C-alpha cells in the first residue's frame, strides 16, 4: 500500500484547478484498471443549459422541431416546481467524449461525475461491441451539424410547415429506422455531402424505372407474382427513403437524417443496464481507490456514498416510488457480483459460473463489458445470489385470465426462469412490435403492405392508426398493416386511408 497522501480538497467548493487535479488522479487510476477511453472534454454548464441539453436528446446541437420544445417546457416546469432534479451529468458518445458538469454541483459531485461519465461511460462507449459496430463517435457531432444546417435550409426553401410534417412522420417511425444486422459504413461529413448529391440523382433515376408505367416486353408470369421487396424489410424508414414513389430528394434526405440519428441511439437503448452498471461500478471503485490512497477525506466519502446509494436504490414493487427495475441498481450489483464471483466464489457460484469463479476479476469484467448487451448480459451473469438479494419474481399477465399469476420467484426452482424473464424484458425485439415491409403492389395501386408478427398474442397499441397516417404521408399511396399470429393468419388489419372492413377480426 502506498503511503497516505494529502486530500486534494476538503471543502464543497469546486474550482477549475481542483477539477483538473481530480481528473488527473482519476485518469491515472483508471489507466491502472485498464480503462480505455476516448479523450475527455469536460464542459461546465448552468442548469439552464442542462435543460437545453435535455431537450435536444442530450446532444449539444440538433435540428429544430416542436417536440424538443415540448420536452423543454416539460423539463423546465418540473425543474422549477422542484418536482425533479436534473441529472448531475450528461455524457455524449463522441470523440472526444463530451461530458457536462453542472455548475451547482459540489466538488464531491463533480469528482463523482468525472469518474462516472468521463471514465465509466466513456470506456463503455469505446469498448462495447454494439457501439463499435453501430456508431461512429468521431463523426456524430459533425453529422448533427450537417443535419441541422440541411434541415434549416429545407425550411427556408420549402417552408417550416412542410418540414415539420415530414419530421413528425419520420419521428413516429423512428424506432423502425434502424438496421439491426448490417453495419453502416462510417463517413466523413465531406463524403456525406458529396454522396448526398449523387444519391439524390441516383434514387430519382432508380425510381423512374421502378414506377415506369410503360409496359416492358418479355415479362414472365413468374415475375408478375413475385413480391417487392423480394425480402421483407424491417427498416421501414430505409425502405421509404429508397422506394417511396412521391418523395422529393430533400424529403428523402430528411428521412435519412432521422434514420441515422435513430441508428446512433440504437445501441444506447440496448445497453442501458450495462452502461449504467459499468459507470456506477467504476465511479465506486475509482473513488474508493482514491480514498484508500488518502486523496479524499471522510467527508468526501460520506457525501459520495450518500449520492451513490440513492442512485442505486431499488424501491420495491409496492412502493409509491416504484418505476420498474432500476437499471442503475441492477447493473451496478451485477458488475459488483462478477467481481465477487471472481474473488470470493461460493460453492453455488462455482456450480453456476464454473468459467468465472476464481479467474482474475478485471479481465472478466472487461470481457463482459465488451461482448454483451443487456439481454445477453443478464442471461449470462445474473447470479442466484443477486436474484435473492433483489427478491425478484415474475408476474404472468394473460389477458384471457381474470387474474394475474405469480409464475416464479427467487428460489431454487425459479432462478433460471426469473433470469430468462428478466433478460427477455430487455430484448428490444419483445418490447417493440415486430413490423416489416411485406409487399408493394408495384403493378397495381402501389399500395404498401406491412406485416406485424404478433408476439405472445399482443395486439398493436392505440396510436397505431395515427402512425399509419404518418406512414401513408410518407408513402403517398394506400398503406395497410396486417397483424398476423404465429400461424400466419391475419388477426387484424389497419388501413390508411381507413376502409370499412377495418373491424377487428376474431382473435
Amino acid at each position: 500500500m502506498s503511503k497516505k497522501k494529502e486530500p486534494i480538497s476538503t471543502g464543497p467548493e469546486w474550482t477549475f484547478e481542483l477539477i483538473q487535479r481530480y481528473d488527473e488522479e482519476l485518469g491515472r487510476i483508471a489507466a491502472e484498471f485498464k480503462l480505455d477511453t476516448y479523450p475527455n472534454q469536460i464542459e461546465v454548464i448552468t442548469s439552464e443549459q442542462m435543460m437545453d441539453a435535455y431537450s435536444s436528446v442530450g446532444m449539444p446541437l440538433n435540428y429544430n422541431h416542436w417536440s424538443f420544445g415540448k420536452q423543454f417546457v416539460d423539463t423546465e416546469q418540473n425543474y422549477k416546481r422542484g418536482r425533479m432534479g436534473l441529472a448531475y451529468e450528461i455524457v455524449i458518445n463522441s470523440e472526444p467524449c463530451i461530458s457536462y458538469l453542472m455548475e451547482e454541483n459540489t466538488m464531491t459531485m463533480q469528482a463523482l461525475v468525472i469518474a462516472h461519465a468521463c471514465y465509466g461511460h466513456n470506456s463503455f462507449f469505446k469498448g462495447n461491441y454494439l457501439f463499435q459496430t453501430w456508431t461512429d463517435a468521431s463523426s456524430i457531432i459533425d453529422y448533427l451539424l450537417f443535419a441541422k444546417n440541411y434541415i434549416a435550409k429545407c425550411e427556408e426553401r420549402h417552408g417550416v410547415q412542410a418540414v415539420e410534417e415530414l419530421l413528425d412522420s419520420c419521428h413516429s417511425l423512428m424506432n423502425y429506422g434502424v438496421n439491426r444486422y448490417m453495419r453502416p459504413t462510417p463517413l466523413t461529413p465531406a463524403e456525406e455531402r458529396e454522396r448526398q448529391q449523387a444519391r439524390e440523382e441516383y434514387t430519382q433515376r432508380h425510381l423512374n424505372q421502378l414506377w415506369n408505367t410503360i409496359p416492358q416486353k418479355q415479362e414472365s408470369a413468374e415475375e408478375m407474382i413475385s413480391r417487392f421487396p423480394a425480402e421483407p424489410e424491417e427498416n421501414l424508414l430505409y425502405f421509404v427513403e429508397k422506394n417511396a414513389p412521391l418523395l422529393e430528394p430533400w424529403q428523402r434526405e430528411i428521412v435519412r437524417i432521422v434514420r441515422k440519428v435513430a441508428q446512433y441511439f440504437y445501441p444506447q437503448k440496448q445497453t442501458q443496464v450495462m452502461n449504467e452498471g459499468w459507470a456506477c461500478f467504476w465511479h465506486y471503485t475509482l473513488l474508493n481507490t482514491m480514498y484508500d490512497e488518502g486523496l479524499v477525506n471522510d467527508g468526501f466519502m460520506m457525501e459520495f456514498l450518500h449520492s451513490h446509494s440513492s442512485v442505486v436504490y431499488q424501491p420495491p414493487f409496492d412502493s409509491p416510488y416504484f418505476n420498474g427495475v432500476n437499471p442503475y441498481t441492477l447493473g451496478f450489483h451485477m458488475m459488483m457480483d462478477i467481481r465477487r464471483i471472481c474473488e470470493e466464489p461460493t460453492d453455488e457460484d462455482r456450480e453456476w459460473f464454473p468459467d468465472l469463479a476464481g479467474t482474475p476479476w478485471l479481465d472478466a469484467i472487461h470481457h463482459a463489458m465488451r461482448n454483451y448487451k443487456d439481454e445477453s448480459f443478464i442471461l449470462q451473469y445474473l447470479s442466484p445470489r443477486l436474484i435473492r438479494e433483489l427478491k425478484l419474481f415474475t408476474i404472468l399477465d394473460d389477458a384471457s385470465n381474470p387474474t394475474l399469476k405469480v409464475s416464479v420467484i427467487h428460489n431454487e426452482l425459479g432462478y433460471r426462469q426469473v433470469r430468462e424473464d428478466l433478460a427477455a424484458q430487455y430484448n428490444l425485439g419483445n418490447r417493440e412490435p415486430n413490423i416489416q415491409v411485406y409487399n408493394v403492389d408495384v403493378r397495381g395501386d402501389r399500395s404498401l403492405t406491412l406485416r406485424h408478427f404478433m408476439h405472445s398474442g399482443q395486439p398493436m397499441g392505440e396510436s397505431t392508426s395515427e402512425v399509419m397516417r404518418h406512414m401513408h404521408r410518407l408513402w403517398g399511396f394506400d398503406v395497410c398493416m396486417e397483424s398476423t399470429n404465429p400461424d400466419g393468419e391475419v388477426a387484424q388489419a389497419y388501413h390508411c386511408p381507413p376502409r370499412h372492413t377495418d373491424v377487428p377480426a376474431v382473435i
Partner: protein
Amino acid sequence: MSYIIDRRLNAKKKSTVNRQRFLRRYRKHIKEAVEDSVNQRSITDMDKGGSVTIPRRDISEPSFHHGEGGIRKRVFPGNKEFVPGDEFQRPQGGGGGGGAGSGNASNQGEGDDEFTFQINQDEFLDFMFEGLELPYLVKKQLKDATLWETRRAGFTNAGSPDKIHIIRSLRAANMRRIALSGKERRRIRELEREIESIQLRMSNGDAEEQVAKLRLEIEEQRALIKRLPWIDDFDIKYNNTIRVPVPSSKAVMFCVMDVSGSMTQSIKDMAKRFFILLYLFLKRNYKHIEVVFIRHHTHAKEVDEQEFFYSRETGGTIVSSALNLTADVLEERYNATDWNVYVAQASDGDNWDGDSDVCGRILDKRILPHVQYFSYVEITTGPHQNLWVEYEQLQQRWNENFAMHQIEDPADIYGVFRKLFEKKTEGAA
C-alpha cells in the same frame, strides 16, 4: 488527457426556437386555456403570465407499440410474501401491474394525464389579444398626425455647418484632387522614367545636365498639383435629415362609470375587468397611456382609481353629467391632434328619463368627433332601457368608432371585449 471547458457563458436560450414552435403548434389549445383563465382571474393579476394545461393525449407523439392484451411477463423486485402460483386481481387504474407493458412504451408518467407548462406575461398577452386590433387606427393616425420626427436621409451638398459629414467631405476632396491632377501626375511619371533611362544610358557628366532639366520640370508639375485647392466648397457633404410625420404614441383612456345605487359591487367588478382589458390592450399599442376616471350619479366627478372602484355612493343617475365632464376634460387637457382618445363607458343602463337624448347630443357634437373609439358596455340581465335605444341611433351614425355591447355575467366580458375589437376587414374601414 482531458480538456476542461467553461461553457457557462455560452448562449443559453438554445431551446427558444423549439419552444416557440411548440407554442405555435398548440396555439388553439393555449388560446383556450388563456381565455379560460382570463375569465377566472382576479383583476390584479390579469396581466401576469400563466400556466397552460393541455391534455397529454393531444400532444403525445404516436409510435408503434404494443397494446393491452396477449400474454406478458414482467419481473418485479422486492417480493415479500408471494410464492409461485399465487393469483390475485388485476390492479385497476394507472395501468400499473402487468398492464403497463414490459417496455418503456408508457413511461410518460402514470396517471399524469395533463401536460402543464408556464407561459410568460408577453406570451400570455399575445394569446389574449391575438386577432384583435384597434379599429381604424391607421386611417385616423395618418389623418391626424401632427407629430414629426427627424430622420436621417442620406447626404446633401447644402446644409448648415453643424451637419458637416467630415469623412465624406474629405473623401470627396480627395477624389476631386485625384481627378484634377491626373495630367500632371502622368507627366511626372513620364519624366521620372526618362530620368531613369538617361541615367542608365549616359555617362555621369552628360546625364547630370539633362536630369537637372527634367527634375526642374517635375518640380513645376508638382507645384501645379499643389496649387489645387485642398478642399473646395462643393466637396463638403452634409448629413441630410428630413421630417416625417409619425403617428402619435400617446393615448388617453377615459373610464366612465355609473356609481348610482343600482350598481352593485359585482357589476362594478365586471366593469373593472372590462376597463383593465382595454387598458392592457392599449398599452400594447401605445408608448404612453393616461387614464382618466370619471364616476357619476347625478353629478360627475374625476377621481383616482381607488375611489373610482371602491367608494360607494347612492343617488339617481344622470349620464349626461359624466359625458359633459368627459368632453370638458378632453378639450382642456387632451388635444385630439396629439392624443389618441378612447372612452369606455360602463353602466347598468339606468338613466334619468329625458337625459338620454341629451347624452346623444353631447356624444354626437362634443365627443365622438374627437375620439378614436367609444365603447359602451351595459352590464345588466334585464331589458334595455332608454340609454341603449338612444345609443343605438348613435351607432348607426358613427358606426366606425362607436360600439356597444351587453354583458350579463363575468364570463361574457372577454368575449364581448374580443367582439368589440376583433379585426375588421379592409372593406369596412
